[in-house]
Structure formats: structure tokens, C-alpha cells
């Protein structure tokens, strides 16, 4: 394992410290417990948005703290959800008196830790609502399982809920809009090569040079099945069709098409995948109204990508277009 780090045990602390120095105009970094909040502090009267999860998915979530998106982000250890004693103060820091929305990716660990944190914040008299993002169609959903994972679609939830909060919507409205995005966003991913968690020192799974892993998550978990390497157009079809099927996208419907890199794949390849995905969406009658291509929800240096489709209506499109000023997303 070769990494630009000093001590595996300190990589998250040092990385977040560097992030804070580089973006002091946007964020404030708090240490033990560690969380990132907007430089200006909570916006009075505005609903606060807090998200978090294991580290290693950068720029998610800290890169999305700022005007029009999150108020606070809580990074855990690498791929390990943060603890309630960090989430609770982040929630308090994000509270502008209008309540706080927790945006949680659906992992048992994240759900349980945010749950406890919400109880703590509630004890401090802060109204907390929670939405759980579960856009990964690679995982079969069922009442009896942990359900689908939250992956790249989280960016859409944070952007749109953030715009809703920024324009002054109340907690119920912001929550409803977040739920609306969750109901209309789906994702599926592929890995060409696994990533190596610093403290583990070995790749999270082993792939030969002729294999790829379809249906991977963002924590280096193995995927649903392993297939021989294939051309980008074929791989993209294996990701895009299940997404469109699950969305039950009808001809003429407008969508946001988001090709997300897992961290170790060149941008040029992501655009090759975008080209293939867009061709499929349009062949099925979808209308690509908005696009996003880049590394936004990563898995360290994993090679691969995911394809996300969000069904748009005029309200969602307007909120997506609303101004955003964060380290990783701005317009």
C-alpha cells in the first residue's frame, strides 16, 4: 500500500485540518469531537442541514458544507460512521432555531448513530427530522433486510434540500423535498479495482485483471456479482438499465444524469460513460435536463463509477439550479 499519508490513525484528522485551512472562507473545523460547520455559523431562522458518515468518500460530506447546501458535516473514521457525541454538537451548531434535518445514508451504523444523536439533540430542545437515503438499486430492498444503501444520490438530496432550506422553507417542507428526491433518485455502481483502507493495508477485495465487480457500494464492500471485463458501453448499460427500470422512467420524463467517479478513474473515462449512459436514457425516451460528471461520492482510490438518475420536475430543477457555494460544488 502506497498512500500520501503520515499515520493511518491520523489521516482523517490531518485531512480535515488541511481542508479547513484551504477553505477557511467557507467552513470552520471543530476538533474532538470532530465536525465541520459553515464559517458563518448557523443561519438564524433557517432550517439546519447535517449529514455525515465514514470518511473516505471525499468530497462528501465536508465538501458540501456552505451556502445552499449543508450547515454541518460529521466525518467518522475511514468507512466508519461517526459517533453520537460528534453528531449531536454538529446538530446544535447547525441549529438556527428552525430545527435540523439529518441526511443519513442507509447503513445500520449511520442510522443507529444518528438516531442516538437525534435523541441527544432533542433532549437539548432541538427539533430533529431524519431522512434516510437509499438509492442503490444493486441491493434488493425488503422489509426484512437492512435495505438499500445510500450512495451517490446523496449529493442530489443534499443539494436540493439545501436549496429548499436556503430559500426559507420550514422543517416539514425541507424534509418533504428531501423525501421527494429520495423517492425519485436511483444509482448503481461498478468497480474495476478495489480501494485500500489505510489502517487495513490490503485492498478491500481482490479482483483479477480480467474481472470487474458490478453493484458495489462506497465502502469497498464487494458487489452483487463479478463479471469479466467489458467495454465501457456494455458496463454502462449494466448500470443504467437497472436504474431506469427501478425508476420506472416513462418516455418524455425529465431527468438529471449524474456519472460519479469512485476516486481513481480518470475524468476522461467518466465522460465516456456519461456518453453511453445518456445514449441509453434518450433511447428510452428520457430527457436529460441536467448533468453532473465527476468525483463527488468516492471510495478512496477505487477505480470505477456509478450512474445516478434523478427524475426531475420544475420544482426540483429550480432547486438544483439554485446558487450553491461549497468547496466541491458551486454555481
Amino acid at each position, binding site marked *: 500500500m502506497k498512500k500520501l499519508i503520515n499515520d493511518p490513525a491520523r489521516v482523517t484528522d490531518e485531512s480535515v485540518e488541511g481542508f479547513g485551512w484551504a477553505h477557511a472562507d467557507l467552513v470552520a473545523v471543530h476538533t474532538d469531537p470532530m465536525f465541520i460547520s459553515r464559517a458563518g455559523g448557523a443561519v438564524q431562522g433557517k432550517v439546519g442541514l447535517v449529514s455525515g458518515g465514514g470518511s473516505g468518500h471525499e468530497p462528501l460530506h465536508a465538501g458540501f458544507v456552505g451556502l445552499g447546501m449543508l450547515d454541518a458535516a460529521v466525518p*467518522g473514521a475511514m468507512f466508519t460512521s461517526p459517533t453520537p457525541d460528534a453528531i449531536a454538537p454538529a446538530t446544535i451548531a447547525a441549529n438556527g432555531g428552525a430545527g435540523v434535518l439529518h441526511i443519513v445514508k442507509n447503513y445500520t451504523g449511520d442510522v443507529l448513530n444518528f438516531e442516538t444523536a437525534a435523541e441527544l439533540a432533542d433532549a437539548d430542545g432541538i427539533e430533529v427530522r431524519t431522512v434516510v437515503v437509499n438509492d442503490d438499486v444493486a441491493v434488493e430492498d425488503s422489509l426484512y433486510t437492512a435495505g438499500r444503501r445510500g450512495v451517490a444520490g446523496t449529493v442530489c438530496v443534499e443539494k436540493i434540500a439545501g436549496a429548499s432550506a436556503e430559500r426559507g422553507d420550514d422543517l416539514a417542507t425541507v424534509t418533504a423535498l428531501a423525501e421527494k428526491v429520495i423517492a425519485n433518485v436511483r444509482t448503481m455502481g461498478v468497480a474495476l479495482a478495489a480501494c485500500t483502507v489505510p489502517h*487495513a493495508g490490503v485492498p478491500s477485495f481482490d479482483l483479477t485483471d480480467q474481472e470487474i465487480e458490478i453493484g458495489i457500494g462506497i465502502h469497498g464492500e464487494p458487489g452483487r456479482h463479478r463479471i469479466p471485463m467489458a467495454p465501457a458501453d456494455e458496463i454502462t448499460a449494466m448500470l443504467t438499465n437497472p436504474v431506469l427500470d427501478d425508476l420506472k422512467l416513462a418516455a418524455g420524463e425529465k431527468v438529471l444524469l449524474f456519472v460519479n467517479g469512485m476516486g481513481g478513474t480518470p475524468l476522461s473515462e467518466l465522460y465516456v460513460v456519461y456518453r453511453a449512459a445518456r445514449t441509453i436514457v434518450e433511447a428510452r425516451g428520457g430527457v436529460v435536463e441536467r448533468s453532473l460528471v465527476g468525483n463527488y461520492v468516492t471510495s478512496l482510490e477505487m477505480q470505477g463509477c456509478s450512474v445516478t438518475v434523478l427524475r426531475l420536475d420544475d420544482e426540483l430543477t429550480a432547486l438544483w439550479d439554485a446558487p450553491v457555494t461549497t468547496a466541491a460544488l458551486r454555481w
Partner: protein
Amino acid sequence: MALDVAWALRWVRRTAAVVAEHKTELMELDRQIGDGDHGENMNRGFTAVVAKLDALDEPPAEVGDLLKLVATTLMSTVGGAAGPLYGTAYLRAAKVAGVEALGAADCVAVLEAGLEGIVARGKATTGEKTMVDAWTPAALAAQAAAADGASPEAVLEAAAVAAEAGAVATDPMVATKGRASYLGERSAGHRDPGAASTALILRAAAATAADPSLGSVA
């Protein structure tokens, strides 16, 4: 030998030592069907617990007080799924351990309370390939042993043996809870890391009860 606070201290220190010893093994198990951090998480948590113990001027009065300290420390340092689950387990156990020393019935109560805590939080039942599959047989075996009039030490021994068997029994299971459930069928053929760590924890309880030299500060 009484299962008093002195024993509980040795149990916890012994657990920390064993978790550290098996850290890579637990990470490798989690790498197979999860995200490879369980050993790291548990080790981070119990290292923090030991640090807290070292900082105590005087040991807590009751076993429950110690278990509560373990609970809050794990909750704020382990993270992941295991953090809240074990945290709640120790918290519930602490509630029924408000005694100076555990009798056989107390041991059963502690194990049952811990299991209830995990189930309350994680909503898992047996057969879902989680730590519940180690805790459940442990609690049942403890009940049976106590019913037969076994000593507290023997109750813990029965629980440890059952937990170890329960962990092994997760090998063929297809996970329907936790991160391993994302693998579907592919999760079969691997041992659940949380069940394995549960077996380590309960084995440490029995071992320290049987051997007073184990777990005492070097």
C-alpha cells in the same frame, strides 16, 4: 471467587487485550462480507475504555457502574454499527448489575439484558448472521446452567461455549441485516465479525472468572 467489581475490571481489561490480539482477524472477517473495519472499531473502543479505567482514582462501587462506563465509552468511540449495538448492550446490562458481585442469576440477567439491548437497537433476530446469533445461544445456555444450579463461573463458561458455537454457526448463513446483507447469497461461507467479537467478549468473561490472574494490570 466472587464476580465483583475487581473481576469486572479484569473482564474488561482482558476483553481489550483479546480484541487487540484478534484485531486483524476481525478486520479480515469484515473485509470478506463487510467493509473491513470491525477489528479497528472494536480495538479503538476498548483501548479508550482501558484509558478511562487507568484514569480512575478509585474503582466504581458496583459492577453496573463499570459496565455503564464501558457502554458510554464504546458509544462515543467505536462508531459503525457495532458501536451503538455494544454500547446499548452494556448499558442495558449495567442496569441489572447494580450489585457488588454477580450471582448466577445476575449473570443470566446481564446476558439477557445485553441481548435485549442489541435487539432493541438493531431489530435483528437469530439466523440473520449478526452478533445476535452469538448472544442468543449464550443467554439461553446461561439460563439452562443457572437452572441446573451451576455456579456463576460455570454459567459464564456455558455462555462462552455457546457464543463460540453460535459464531461458528453463522458461517453458512445468508446475512439479512447489517452491511453483509448487501452481498446477498455471497455472504454465505464467511463468519460474521460481530458474532466473532461477541464470542471473544464472553469468553473473556468466563476466562477471567475461572482464572484470577487473567486481566489484572501487569
